[in-house]
């Protein structure tokens, strides 16, 4: 689909692109920090940025709630977090808004922006999302809830229990499955016996859709539809969004061990950021030179953010026993 079919204005599309590009460039920075030993872990969303930004733009960040998973950097940035916030997480800084240096990098959360803290344990966020959704319903709020997970993580019982409950109560929750083909080294066909995970939606009586996360407009429109359902009180949705995992699973993994050179090369030819850039130029929203300007501007921004984040204090050991129980600050 053309970008313009999203019905977003050129300005909005350019802003969306900037988010996509910033997420990509920021992640590249995180890998650098990892390689030089300044952070000990990275798990990245490269190959999912376009889908994530399109998804997040369909919501009303600040009003709506988001329970992300570890690859959702681009989405949490649309929701409000900035590069410095994320860098502070990677560096384990005290002011890291996700966990104040307590959790591993990429475990996003931010109270200021209604982004609920993510644990490493996969899929537990889905039942939490139903609780947040039920609170919106009972408290008669107009806010809705987005929660994300990987396709491998849908094998967990929690996936089923959450969707089932959301179906019963017609909760305002949009569940997205970011299908990047693998759970670490385990390919789709060893994860489930069905072609499309969105085929599970009818079994819960909820709205379902299968979309290509490389296609900005298709993704945006699908989420708009899901959002509309949720806001109208028509209940939950299950969106399967096909993305790529351009990198290894994490900085502890090497995907060349279990994916062929050819497979990786073909995936890289089909990089979602490249696709969006080509669309912007083809649809005459931006010129090549403007893309270059944006890139330079973002490079400066990320350099500055890195400097700022590095200058922040580390948590000190006296914080070990704080915030365990109420009153224990």
């Amino acid at each position, binding site marked *: 689909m053309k970008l313009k079919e999203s019905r977003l204005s050129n300005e909005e599309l350019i802003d969306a692109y900037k988010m996509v590009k910033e997420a990509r460039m920021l992640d590249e920075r995180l890998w650098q920090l990892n390689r030089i030993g300044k952070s000990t872990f990275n798990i990245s969303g490269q190959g999912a940025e376009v889908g994530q930004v399109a998804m997040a733009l369909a919501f009303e960040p600040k009003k709506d709630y988001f329970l992300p998973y570890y690859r959702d950097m681009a989405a949490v940035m649309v929701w409000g977090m900035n590069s410095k916030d994320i860098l502070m997480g990677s560096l384990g800084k005290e002011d890291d*808004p*996700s*966990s*104040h240096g*307590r*959790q591993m990098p990429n475990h996003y*959360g931010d*109270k200021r922006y209604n982004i*609920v*803290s993510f*644990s490493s*344990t996969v899929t*537990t966020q*889905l*039942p*939490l*999302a*139903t*609780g*947040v*959704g*039920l*609170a*919106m319903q*009972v*408290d008669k709020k107009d806010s809705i809830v987005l929660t994300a997970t990987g396709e491998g993580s849908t094998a967990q*019982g*929690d996936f089923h*229990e*959450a969707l*089932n*409950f959301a179906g*019963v109560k017609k909760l305002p929750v949009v569940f997205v499955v970011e299908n990047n083909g693998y759970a670490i080294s385990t390919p789709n066909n060893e994860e489930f016996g069905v072609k499309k995970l969105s085929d599970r939606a009818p079994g819960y009586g909820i709205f379902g859709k299968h979309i290509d996360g490389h296609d900005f407009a298709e993704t945006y429109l699908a989420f708009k539809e899901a959002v509309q359902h949720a806001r109208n009180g028509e209940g939950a949705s299950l969106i399967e969004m096909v993305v790529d995992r351009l990198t290894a699973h994490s900085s502890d993994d090497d995907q060349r061990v279990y994916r062929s050179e050819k497979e990786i090369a073909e995936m890289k030819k089909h990089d979602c950021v490249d696709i969006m850039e080509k669309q912007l130029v083809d649809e005459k929203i931006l010129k090549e030179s403007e893309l270059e300007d944006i890139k330079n501007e973002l490079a400066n921004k990320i350099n500055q953010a890195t400097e700022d984040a590095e200058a922040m204090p580390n948590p000190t050991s006296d*914080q070990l026993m*704080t*915030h*365990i*129980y*109420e009153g224990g*600050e």
Partner: protein
Amino acid sequence: MSEKTYLEALNLAIDEEMQRDPGVMIFGEDVGGVKGGVFGVTKGLAEKFGDERVFNTPLGESEIAGLATGLGLMGHHAIAEFQFADYILPAINQILSEATKMRYRTAGDWTAPIVMRAPYGGGVRGGFYHSQSTEKIFAGQPGLRVVTPSTVYDAKGMLKTAIRSEDPVLFYEHKKLYRSIKADISDADYTVPIDKANILQSGDDVTVIAYGMMLQYVLKATEELKDDISIEVVDLRSLYPLDKATIIEATKKTGKVLLVTEDPKEGSIMNNVSAVIAENALFDLDAPVQILAGPDSPSMPYAKDLEDAFLVNPEQVKAAIKDLAEF
């Protein structure tokens, strides 16, 4: 004052707190509607507070725990009921990975101020999976509180405190106490601490620490032995974290300690109590720290003779106190 059973006291606590705080909600399997739970703890509440605040969930304990936690994140003091303490097992990942760690992992930005109720304990011919004391599984998980009331007064007062707490609280209720104990309790809006053990009776010869049905047996034995042995009776109340100060003090007072639990001995909560004593009051002891407990057998069998053989009984409690006094 009015006479209440342990079960009625719990029902009243929930009722009062739901009136006080419109954010309180309660749910679980068969908790809503006219049934009001398989034991009837929530009877009448759906009618009174409506189906939005008191409702049935589908049969999935992990979802029940996650739902409560999600509501807690939004400031609701949600109460989740697990139908039996045996059936809390599918929810352990949610409880330990999410609710328990939420406050710490966000340095207080997000919290889970919820209560998870679980009827536990044996002696009801419920066989393997309706008799277990699963509380020990949750001991040693900072961020979480595991508590149980063992008197009618505490049933009401501790549940009210748990509901008002900003921490996740696992609230164990001994299912055999539901209808077997009654007491006159205050009609006032009182609360009881959930982090403090309680000296139910002061004594000089022997210290006995217990909770649940076993505490009732201890009280019975104490009464029967009152002319011969002066017994310090401690109701543990907070199973995790332990109220170490009270345990140590009560130990030092008599120098002889008996710990009673119906759970299999090795691994039970009483091991943690014993370790506190062995580290902090060793030279005050005049006798080994005794644990009277269930057998190290997988769970309570159904057949009457086997169930009876599994259960610690009042005679054993009395005999253990006498033995220790004579030590």
